[in-house]
């Protein structure tokens, strides 16, 4: 009976209501916070994007409408001779801040015996004398391809109007190579 009395005292009621109020208010605020997190995503303009270089025709380079994907369909590798596409495509920083970039292997399919290497070099400029900032090398030997893995991050500051970062492609097929093709997909990560 005493316990029953105590339970119905005003203080107990108030404390109970206060606790449930705190619980409901906190839970509601959490839900609202998650709403603000999930609803602030919007489509933005790409700041770092590709643009075609001087060798884009030779390499068969084409860009997606937003300049975020580049496809090169006319790259050739010659038997026992290295061939360099110095400036098929460039990366350009259109923002005001300095971004970082890296080359990352994604997938490879096709022939595994007729090539020697395919290299992707990120250059600090667009000429063949521009220093290499990062390189991702695919090497074909003994019936399989290996690569050097994801490169480390490199800075790409915005130093308009002249600086572009060319992605140079070097290829080589093995001596007396038969007709073959390989498709390589790499990602250019930006942060």
């Amino acid at each position, binding site marked *: 009976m005493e316990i029953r009395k105590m339970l119905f005292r005003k203080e107990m009621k108030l404390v109970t*209501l206060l606790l449930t*109020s705190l619980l409901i208010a906190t839970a*509601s*605020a959490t*839900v609202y916070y998650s709403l603000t997190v999930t609803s602030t995503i919007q489509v933005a303009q790409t700041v770092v994007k590709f643009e075609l270089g001087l060798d884009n025709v030779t390499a068969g380079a084409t860009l997606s409408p937003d300049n975020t994907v580049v496809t090169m369909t006319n790259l050739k590798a010659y038997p026992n001779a290295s061939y360099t596409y110095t400036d098929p495509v460039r990366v350009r920083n259109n923002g005001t801040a300095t971004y970082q970039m890296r080359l990352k292997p994604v997938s490879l399919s096709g022939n595994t015996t007729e090539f020697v290497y395919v290299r992707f070099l990120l250059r600090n400029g667009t000429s063949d004398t521009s220093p290499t900032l990062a390189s991702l090398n695919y090497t074909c030997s003994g019936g399989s391809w290996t690569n050097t893995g994801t490169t480390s991050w490199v800075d790409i500051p915005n130093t308009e109007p002249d600086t572009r970062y060319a992605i140079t492609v070097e290829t080589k097929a093995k001596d007396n190579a038969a007709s073959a093709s390989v498709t390589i997909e790499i990602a250019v990560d930006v942060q």
Partner: protein
Amino acid sequence: MAEPAILPEFFALLSIDVFLLLSLLTCLLEDRFPKAVPYVYQIAALIGFGHLLVSREFLSLFGEYMRFWYNFSYLLIALGNIVAINLYLAVEKKLWSLAKAWSGMVTFPLTVISVFFVSNYSYLQGAEFPTLILQIGLVMSAIVMGVSISIFLSPDLLNKLKRS
């Protein structure tokens, strides 16, 4: 257009807090209200919480306009309850002093806060409220401030309110 600083669901959150406040206040003044009232307001707050949870799942389905109106309706219900309690104290219970205190310390501040957030939201959405509302809001704020200063300068006023 700039991203609004507050989402329409903010009004639901505000209403939940109003209901919780009402629950606690009616519990404190339990002699003057039916015993079930604090719990009814807790349930109303819980309904608001459920409404927020469900709303989160259908954000993409309902447009901004629809979301604003159902959240704003919920806020209106909460504010309506505050006014109803005010009227209940004044008309039904004839507790004039308490009704005045309630209107000064609960009804006006919460109404002004609600008007502020609604006008802020509308402004960010590009639909400004007429200047009249701002003026009314300022007058209400001035009244509340005047009452607060009076109580601050003469604490006996509070004792009189308590005795009533």
